[in-house]
């Protein structure tokens, strides 16, 4: 078969993107767990492990650039490599959000939570599930799935709005809650951004498959003007 080595290298690179996605997904899910369980040691571990994710992202970038330079890919192959570069960067930024959440867990420390965390883990679960399926769509080159997943962002936006309003009521009831409520709003904001970036990934997948850029963004659900 022609281009056997290129095919092999390209598929290996796609597998590595999948692996980077799994690392980012785990970091997001676990960061929210450390916040919920107030597990400071684990939160510090997540912050520390972020550098492995950064290293992996740069390794993928290097390999993709090497393939472009040495194999001169064209058309669909070139678009796939461009998508890999973009997706790796999105995943790395998602992991940064997880690091931010872990940092908030460390900052809140052992002080009692102003409310039990229910919707924040739901947001994390939803965002991680979207991410997981987006990367599956990339590997399977499933354009229909890539177009459908960003629509689910409204659910994440709805949860974000709900959390925000709830935290505002806590602040109004007790101004001492302002500091922690603000931090928890950051957490929700980070998770909302993760879901937005899943949308970006899906746009890259559609472009890599079809060759046409499509705007898959849903309108911002919150804050509404």
């Amino acid at each position, binding site marked *: 078969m022609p281009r056997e080595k290129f095919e092999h290298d390209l598929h290996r690179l796609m597998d590595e993107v999948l692996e980077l996605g799994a690392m980012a997904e785990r970091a997001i899910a676990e960061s929210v767990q450390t916040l919920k369980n107030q597990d400071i040691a684990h939160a510090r571990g997540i912050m520390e492990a972020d550098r492995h994710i950064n290293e992996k992202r740069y390794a993928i970038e290097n390999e993709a650039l090497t393939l472009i330079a040495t194999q001169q890919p064209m*058309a669909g192959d070139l678009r796939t490599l461009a998508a890999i570069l973009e997706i790796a960067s999105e995943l790395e930024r998602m992991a940064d959000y997880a690091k931010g959440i872990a940092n908030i867990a460390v900052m809140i420390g052992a002080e009692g939570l102003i409310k039990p965390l229910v919707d924040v883990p739901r947001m994390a679960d939803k965002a991680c599930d979207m991410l997981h399926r987006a990367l599956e769509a990339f590997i399977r080159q499933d354009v229909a799935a890539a177009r459908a997943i960003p629509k689910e962002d409204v659910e994440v936006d709805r949860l974000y709005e709900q959390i925000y309003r709830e935290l505002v009521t806590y602040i109004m009831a007790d101004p001492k809650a302002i500091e922690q409520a603000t931090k928890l709003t950051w957490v929700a904001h980070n998770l909302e951004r993760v879901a937005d970036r899943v949308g970006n990934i899906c746009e890259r997948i559609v472009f890599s498959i079809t060759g046409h850029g499509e705007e898959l963004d849903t309108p911002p659900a919150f804050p509404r003007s």
Partner: protein
Amino acid sequence: MPGSPSSGIQVRGLSVRYGARVALQDVTMDIESRQITALIGPSGCGKSTFLRCLNRMNDTIPNARARGTVHIDGTDVYAPGTDVVKLRMKVGMVFQRPNPFPQSIFDNVAFGPRVLATHRGGSLADVVETSLRSADLWAEVKDSLRQDALGLSLGQQQRLCIARVVAVAPDVILMDEPCSALDPIATLRIEELMRRLTEKYTIVIVTHNMQQAARVSDRTGFFWLNEARAGILAEFGATEQIFTSPRDRRTEDYITGRFG
């Protein structure tokens, strides 16, 4: 519509046979004036045959028969009364291997204007200088115009051949793999030269080097073989579209190296 002046080249339903074998089938293509059009595709798919139809070089091949029409700036190339010598003056050609005559650099460039007497009204030396400047060779040879052209490097020889074509003031320059015998530096010089030449000339280039087609051309035509092993134009479009998002599966497979 074919025939309007300065409108490049219009090819309609062009087919070529060599005896019983159909080399090219039913090609329709509009080549824009003062642009570079690259023709790519595997060996034997009719690219060079197509190129040679544009100045009727195929007439020199026994048993070659062309059907269809080719209009260049309004002139029907295959019309019965066409003066083939004038046509080839108007549509010059650069070949795969540089083919300078075993004469001086000056005489190589002066050959066409002398034979065709196209330099009337201006001095031959001026035509030679202008042509060598156009071909980006003047600075290198201006002090050695009387030296043997075969003493030049291959890259210089190819630029000399381009100067020789330019000397008879063509409208179109056909290039059949003009860089395949050249090293990468000489190749890049020819490519840069081609870009500059589009200020005055329409260029059609056959190349097996897809990176070259991608780098240098405005539009790209992909030739392929049909079931009957005849060459067809499978896809034709803007170069950036062909190399990033080809519409035809065969183009995609060919340019990504999956067959061909």
